[in-house]
């Protein structure tokens, strides 16, 4: 099952030398530049449109909370797919994680709750690993089955454990404690003042900083650390090299004495644990109990964010961040904020069209220009985006970004392929 772009189906124009050149430049540098540029763009947009919730501390804080579950799920996807196992069961493992957090945190306290969510996610990962790695089942089938089983099992277990418990019921756990949060109220207030001054760019930075020093859950820090850790382990250690080689060419890896099955198995277990933690985050930090249906498809979104991020930790962080951000905007002051985004999209489209003209790509240029102009017209003709449309923002934006960028994506070469031991040679 090819989950991802088949290069043959779409002869990618991406030239090898260009990408090599890109690879040579320091990624950290690009990242910094990108982030700074993005913030500057938003603060400019804010000035132009008056949508001042775009970069408020509240938006940043809520974005962090909305981003983390998606990012952790995406990270789970990354571990599995880097080892060559497609994990569409992230959603199910996340569901298991929400229940794990609900049950263990309620019974033993928040930190055991965190551990419980990871453990239950790993149970899902274990099933997936057994099915795909040991029995060679198609990865998609196993993932879909896990989603069904996890949903049913959790509903069944919740009915069994939370029914009749004070504050709980068959569809929810009682309130559970949160892991500690970090706050520097004094610093936060100072930053708040800077934010209120409405200085171009500076206020935006202050808002971000303020969100980071106000009520920051330790679990957010842990999650962000996990992204860095994943990068280091996967790209800077021998273990990571072996694991990735299983996703690129398991036959080559095995021919060099790598225990392919063991690495794949481990990777899928870790994947399940991360997805479980994503569920745990949802139950403990984003809200404060387990609720049936709480994941709301975030596992799938995580998968999308991972693909969006080109199977790289930094990329998936950006993907889930974009998602969390646009979702937050829509939920908070969607009417005005999303309208401001319309302006941004419109201008970007027109810029893209002009660039296409210079590359003598006239059809694309025309189409994109017309779309951009139309969006611009919508921007001018309304002053509030209706609720139905603010809610679809994250999905539309994701589609748009992918439509423009996805030809550069490249998945692990052996991703999704069932590998049998002894296939080397």
């Amino acid at each position, binding site marked *: 099952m090819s989950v991802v772009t088949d290069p043959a*189906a*779409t002869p990618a124009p991406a030239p090898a030398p260009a990408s090599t050149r890109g690879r040579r430049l320091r990624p950290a540098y690009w990242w910094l530049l990108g982030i700074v540029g993005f913030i500057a763009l938003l603060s400019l947009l804010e000035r132009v449109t008056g949508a001042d919730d775009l970069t408020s501390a509240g938006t940043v804080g809520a974005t962090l909370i909305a981003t983390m579950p998606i990012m952790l799920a995406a990270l789970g996807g990354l571990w599995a797919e880097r080892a060559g196992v497609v994990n569409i069961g992230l959603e199910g493992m996340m569901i298991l994680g929400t229940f794990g957090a609900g049950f263990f945190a309620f019974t033993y306290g928040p930190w055991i709750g965190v551990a419980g969510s990871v453990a239950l996610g790993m149970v899902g990962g274990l099933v997936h690993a057994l099915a795909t790695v040991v029995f*060679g089942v198609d990865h998609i089938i196993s993932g879909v089955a896990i989603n*069904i089983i996890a949903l*049913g099992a959790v*509903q069944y277990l919740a009915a069994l454990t939370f029914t009749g418990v004070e504050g709980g019921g068959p569809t929810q756990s009682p309130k559970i404690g949160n892991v500690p949060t970090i706050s520097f109220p004094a610093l936060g207030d100072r930053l708040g003042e800077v934010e209120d001054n409405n200085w171009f760019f500076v206020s935006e930075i202050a808002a971000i900083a303020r969100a980071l020093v106000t009520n920051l859950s330790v679990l957010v820090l842990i999650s962000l650390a996990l992204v860095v850790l994943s990068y280091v382990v996967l790209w800077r250690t021998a273990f990571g090299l072996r694991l990735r080689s299983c996703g690129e060419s398991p036959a080559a890896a095995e021919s060099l004495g790598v225990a392919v099955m063991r690495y794949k198995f481990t990777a899928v277990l870790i994947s399940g644990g991360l997805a479980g933690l994503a569920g745990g985050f949802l139950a403990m930090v984003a809200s404060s109990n387990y609720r049936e249906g709480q994941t709301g498809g975030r596992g799938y979104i995580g998968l999308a964010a991972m693909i969006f991020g080109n199977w790289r930790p930094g990329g998936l962080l950006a993907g889930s961040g974009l998602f969390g951000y646009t979702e937050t905007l829509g939920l908070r002051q969607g009417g005005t904020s999303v309208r401001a985004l319309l302006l941004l999209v419109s201008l970007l489209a027109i810029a893209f069209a002009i660039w296409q003209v210079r590359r003598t790509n006239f059809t694309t240029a025309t189409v994109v220009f017309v779309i951009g102009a139309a969006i611009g017209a919508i921007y001018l003709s309304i002053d509030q985006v209706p609720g139905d449309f603010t809610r679809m923002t994250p999905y539309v934006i994701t589609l748009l970004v992918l439509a423009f960028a996805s030809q550069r994506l490249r998945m692990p070469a052996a991703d999704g392929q069932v590998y049998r*031991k*002894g296939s080397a040679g």
Partner: protein
Amino acid sequence: MSRVLRALLGLLAPLLALVAAFVITSLVLISAGDPVGEVWSEILQVPETRNLANIINQACVLYLSGLAVAVAFRMNLFNIGVDGQYRIAAFVGAVVAGEAWLPGYLNTALAIVCAMAVGALWAGIAGVLRATRGVSEVISTIMLNFISTSVVAYLLREAAVREEGSNTIGTKEIPEGSRIGSIPLAGSGPGVEIYGFVVLAVLAGVAYWFVMSRTRFGFDLRATGQSTTAAVASGINVRRMTIITMMLSGAVAGLVGLPILFGEAYSYGSTFQSGLGFAGIAIALLGRNNPVGIALAALLFAFLEEQSNPLQILVGVSPEIVAITQGVIVLTVVISYEVVRRFLTRREQSRVARAERPAEPAEPAGPAETQDQETRA
């Protein structure tokens, strides 16, 4: 000889899976302290005619959903978006049928065509993005599911008629003459009927079989699914096939909601059944993209759903337990098929080997089998 054996083994695999699912579910029940015996005797009892009708009706809907997923699967495209496609299509179908621009069954036909067209267009977005921009259809269809929710919600509110005092909204009711009559189930009283649409679903299945296995289009589709590179070399326009296949899948998805629409609900509203697209994925996988297999899978799922519904009332066990059964079946069916397939492949290989070395009669594959890495894997 091989055909008979193959058929027998083909039956053996699902049987194995059912047994495994039975055992695992029972273990869960036992460890939770629930009454295993009562649960199974409730689920496994022969359904009453009324329930039988429900099972068939529900299976009809699930079948169409599975078929829609399978069309794309055959080309290695993963259409997670059937859910969004059928909802937006059912909505449009309901609006068209409710407006009744044409009389009687012409109206029905028009609505069906419109629903299929909308499903096709909606899925076509993912197809075009995949073919021209290389966007993975997995992501785009997930996104389109969410988007269709908002779009339908918005349009429904625009188009809705609301009965005084009701807390539901829905599209205009389809006039009597455009509804699809039900077929009374043989030997039962009034009210026990199955959707007339079942006939159309069966026809859709036959059409699926015919197109896939007998036509050039089906051949091209399957060939592309197996190997894009070989397809290109053989002269298949893969981009076009991608778009057409997604649209075809979407068109079938457009049918999913219609049995309910024309046979029972007569309008699209806030209580219209949801989530059918996701069930379709499991059913297509369980049915191995085979039209008869999908039908059996749909019947099995519908049977489990229907029979588990009263568990809460009669036995006091959460009916969610059957979701575990269903998931385990999906998983174990593949595992047992895999086991059986490996067995058959080994046989096949020994036959080939014998043909390749006519001078040297091959030894029976006795002890060597244990050395095969496949058995160890």
